């Protein structure tokens, strides 16, 4: 191996750290979106008027709406692209697996990031077909009656369960992802590093629980 560093040095995305920084930044943007998204969703608990009015507000500027959607799509694409590239590299880095391998401290969440990611990706596609475009919704109202679309969907226990399980995976993905984000961007300092792991879990599962509250509330008959 006579290769030297000079031919790859300085190339940001060419390095594994560069790819991780891309994942961290896009992941963080998606998390910020999720926080805003869930805050919006919870308005359904205040009734039909409130949530439908909110949905109308979001659609009031096509420019803003599409600008934001494009940023989201770009983030998902870059996040997944880097994830797949790193996964390929990682498999090449250890072509022969251990016959026996212990896990000393690795959490379930940290070991299955790619798998929780795959499911989230599939969920994302379904979710858009379900509540945005309606192809996956048996009685979709395309005229903006979001309240009706959500309540009719979640009155079906199977659909509600699917959403709750997927939100569990969001919690799992972010419980490790939010900590890993601090590492990837080098946000490390004795004053908070020790707490970063706990904080990541708390934020992750709080977001997930807030999302899951909507299908649960509909199914339990609190929202109708």
């Amino acid at each position: 191996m006579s290769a030297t560093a000079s031919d790859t040095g300085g190339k940001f995305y060419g390095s594994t750290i560069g790819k991780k920084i891309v994942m961290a930044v896009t992941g963080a943007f998606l998390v910020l979106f999720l926080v805003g998204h869930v805050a919006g969703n919870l308005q359904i608990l205040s009734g039909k008027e409130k949530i439908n009015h909110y949905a109308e507000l979001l659609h009031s500027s096509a420019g803003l709406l599409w600008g934001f959607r494009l940023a989201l799509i770009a983030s998902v694409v870059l996040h997944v692209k880097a994830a797949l590239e790193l996964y390929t590299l990682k498999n090449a880095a250890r072509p022969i697996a251990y016959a026996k391998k212990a896990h000393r401290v690795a959490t379930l969440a940290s070991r299955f990031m790619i798998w929780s990611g795959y499911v989230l990706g599939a969920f994302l596609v379904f979710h858009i077909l379900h509540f945005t475009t309606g192809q996956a919704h048996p009685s979709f109202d395309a005229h903006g009656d979001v309240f009706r679309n959500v309540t009719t969907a979640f009155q079906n226990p199977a659909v509600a369960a699917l959403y709750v399980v997927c939100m569990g995976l969001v919690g799992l993905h972010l419980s490790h992802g939010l900590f890993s984000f601090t590492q990837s961007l080098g946000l490390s300092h004795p004053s908070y590093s020790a707490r970063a792991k706990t904080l990541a879990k708390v934020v992750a599962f709080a977001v997930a629980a807030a999302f899951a509250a909507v299908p649960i509330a509909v199914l339990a008959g609190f929202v109708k």
Partner: protein
Amino acid sequence: MRTFALTLHVWRQKSAKDGGRFAEYKAPNVSEHMSFLEMLDVVNQDLIAKGDDPIAFDHDCREGICGMCGFMVNGSAHGPHRGTTVCQLHMRHFQDGEELWLEPWRSAAFPIVKDLAVDRSALDRIIAAGGFISVPTGSAVDGNATPVPKVDAELSMDAAACIGCGACVAMCPNASAALFTSAKIGHLGLLPQGQPERHDRALKMVAQANVEGFGHCTSVGECEAVCPKQIPITFIARMNRDFLDAVIHERPQSDRGGSG
């Protein structure tokens, strides 16, 4: 003195080209006072007496400071105990009748030399890429000419404790050398003498680690759990930050200064 028996499943491989397989050995008279390597020495004496090939493993100081030794014991680098090399791992931690699986470090960047011994030159090449400071030689400067804050000196020493054994790579689910590389980058980058080459060092060492085929860091933390020197992954965060700073500040060589 407690003595007991163990069953060993040891990875035997003649060379990098050989396929390799597990072979089973009995260690009937293990003393609790032996180190893990001494236990293997006894097994090897038996093999030699029988005219068999002894198990090859790397070692030198046998006091946990040189970084030569290391293999997997039941899927843990340097065995199941925290903060120790396998040469300093004592047999008192094991029980009669235990079965132990011994495997070499597994990484595409660490070709197997023989049995449990691997070639870790890839780590040396990461150091050679930038793990140094350039100083004009000559008479030594005054000891305290360059003040170093105590906190930085301590942190730098924590990183400098890395003995380059490769356990971090071996234990990492991605076979990443991030902990090793970050320790070497952090150890110099925390000191005033390391500042002039700080950015260059981060770029070059990180790039070299990639050239060698090590994987990426997923912040899982298995490396710090098995590091014999207990170097924390906060150094990896530091390396990532140095790398990012370096990318932002990168200038073409010709722009760096004139002839003056």
